[in-house]
């Protein structure tokens, strides 16, 4: 058969379709996965890529939106923003706000999680505490801001209680005094955010095998030693993931600051988010606001990069 086929003249050969697959199904096979991806890709492009590219583009122009004919100015906006003393204040404030918030979230979250995981408490008591402790997490930021503005009002409940307890003699302007405002908003953020750590760490604690503790007991380890050598190493992956996520979220906190202090008094609670917002919607300097937003984006991406690398290393 093969010899016959070879000897036959080329023009008399059977047409190829008998053996070769038609073109359209092959194209279909190649294209189909991309078609399945297309809606997601389209969403990502329209909702993420295009806006980000536009904001990056804006940051290189003299002013945009309010100026119908913006001009390319290179890195001039970056020079303006980075040399602005208020921006540097905002960076410092954001670093303090984030650092203290994340550390406190972690310590409080772990402490409460360990308490809720303790065999010393009855299940009903645990359920009650769990409900109470998780409450701050259930409130929206607007509610939290209004609640704490009222509590920390100079004539509010906090000052009343502190005065009644003899701890202060004069009402403290918690959110309105330059000496206390940054600590006050940080405290509010800690209060609002610790339950997330608590719930996650509680899940982690419940997953630690009991035999590890039994082995440690047999080895003669006391409570703190068990905590240091069993609990912490077992929770480490959760703690690091949560801390990285919390850093990313806290650096972007805007609503809480805006609704409690607006970045004031003076600029002691100015954060990168409020600084950017004011540039855009108060000064209408959309190019400078875009520049500030790009700087925040780069910082967030660095953190996100660390987070993703850590997750990959874990996997």
């Amino acid at each position, binding site marked *: 058969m093969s010899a016959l086929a070879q000897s036959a003249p080329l023009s008399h050969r059977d047409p190829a379709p008998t053996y070769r697959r038609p073109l359209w199904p092959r194209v279909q096979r190649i294209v189909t996965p991309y*078609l399945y991806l297309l809606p997601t890709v389209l969403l990502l492009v329209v909702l993420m890529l295009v806006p980000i590219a536009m904001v990056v583009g804006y940051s290189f122009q003299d002013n945009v939106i309010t100026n119908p004919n913006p001009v390319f100015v290179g890195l001039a906006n970056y020079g303006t923003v980075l040399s602005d003393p208020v921006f540097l204040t905002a960076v410092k404030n954001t670093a303090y706000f984030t650092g203290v918030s994340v550390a406190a979230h972690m310590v409080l979250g772990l402490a409460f999680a360990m308490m809720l995981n303790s065999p010393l408490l009855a299940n009903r008591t645990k359920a009650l505490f769990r409900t109470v402790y998780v409450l701050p997490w259930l409130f929206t930021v607007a509610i939290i801001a209004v609640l704490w503005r009222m509590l920390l009002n100079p*004539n509010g409940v906090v000052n009343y209680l502190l005065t009644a307890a003899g701890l202060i003699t004069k009402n403290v302007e918690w959110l*309105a005094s*330059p000496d206390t405002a940054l600590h006050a908003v940080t405290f509010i953020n800690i209060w609002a955010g610790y339950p997330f750590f608590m719930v996650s760490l509680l899940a982690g604690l419940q997953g630690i095998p009991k035999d590890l503790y039994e082995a440690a007991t047999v080895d003669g380890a006391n409570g703190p030693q068990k905590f240091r050598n069993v609990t912490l190493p077992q929770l480490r992956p959760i703690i690091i993931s949560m801390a990285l996520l919390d850093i990313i979220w806290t650096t972007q906190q805007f609503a809480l600051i805006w609704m409690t202090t607006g970045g004031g*008094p*003076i600029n002691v609670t100015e954060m990168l988010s409020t600084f950017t917002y004011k540039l855009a919607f108060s000064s*209408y300097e959309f190019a400078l606001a875009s520049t500030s937003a790009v700087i925040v984006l780069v910082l967030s991406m660095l953190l996100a990069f660390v987070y993703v690398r850590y997750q990959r290393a874990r996997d």
Partner: protein
Amino acid sequence: MSNGARAVRGLLVATGAVALAFTTACSGSSSPSSSSSSGEKVTLEFAQWWEPELPDGALQGIMNDFQAANPNITVKLLSGPYASTKEQVVAGAASGTMSDVVGLDGAWVSDFAKQNAITDLTALMKDNGYDDSQLVSQVAIDGKTRMIPVINFVYPMFTNTDLLTQAGVSAPPSTRTEFMDAAKKVTALGNNTAGWVLPLSLDAPNGVQNDVMSWVWASGGSMLKDGKPDLTNKAVTSGTQFVKDLWDAGVVAQGSFTMKEQDKVEEFTNGRVGMMIDSLAHINLIKKENPALKFAISAIPAEDGYTGPRGIPYASWGIGIAENSKHKAEALKLVTYLMSKDVNSKLSTLANAFPGNKESKPDFSNSDPLFQQVFDIYKAGTPANEFVGLPVSEQLMRDYGEQLQLTLNGDESVSDALKNAQAKWVAEF
């Protein structure tokens, strides 16, 4: 057709639909108004924050009357709170999709005029033969009217009659010396009472306009010279120094640096402060929240010995027409309808405000007698708000507010604060 091919075709259709939806959503409506191509029937969009602040259905009722008088025009109200209306209008100005008719605050006008987002009303009124002599005021940038104040809310001084009486103050103060004296006496009553309340929040910095600059305007002073910042002049220095003196005397309610207008009203309503400068629009709110509170309203005290007309701060519900509107003539019809004698009277009565038409008169027969009293104060004085029409006026207030906070905190002198604020303002201009 195989199942696979059918699935691919279905997917293609779905993808196409998604893409089409996005394209439509992203492109938006290039024109905010819709009308038939023949132009017979016109729909006007009217974006404002007034509807939620008026009694239910009041603004829609006025629009229904307008539509009845102009059967070819339909008005679609786009209503929201003040802040979201502002954002909506800013976005519309940037994208050229502003509603045909927009509610405006005087503080926004300069920026929208710079963008050429709101139309030149001077030319439009002239082209359509509208007599603007009946208007109380117009906000013009470079000689072209961009906003017409429809109704005005004034900011007189509120005094807590009970607290002042307890403190031995028989009548509301009319000079700064009397005010300082009354504030000290009220604060001396103890029990967390304060003589005056000053909101200086930086996220809503209108306290600078209403509660600080009002002292300057009340004595005939100005923060501008030839339309440019002049913060270091004698009148502004004296007004700012007076605020600093009040602060140093300890007569200002605590929490000023993050206090907003609503906190100020709350402090007064709860009977914790003796005096405040506030919008007349809050009379009903105060009475509703604390019916037992006795309070009086008077003009803002002036410098000792000043006898000229007293400037009273005001805020307006202004109106403008979008440059991108395809129905400017119809939009002007709506504007002139709202500014007409009877409609403007009705609107000012509904909003407890003062009319923007010289011939209009609000009907106070069913209102609190205080309104009539303040209307008399208003007519005897001069409406004053120099922030109207200035560029980035909210930012100007914030710049001044930051410097004032530094001064009050003892970080810099009044003259340094004013010099620094002046430098920032000049840069903004």
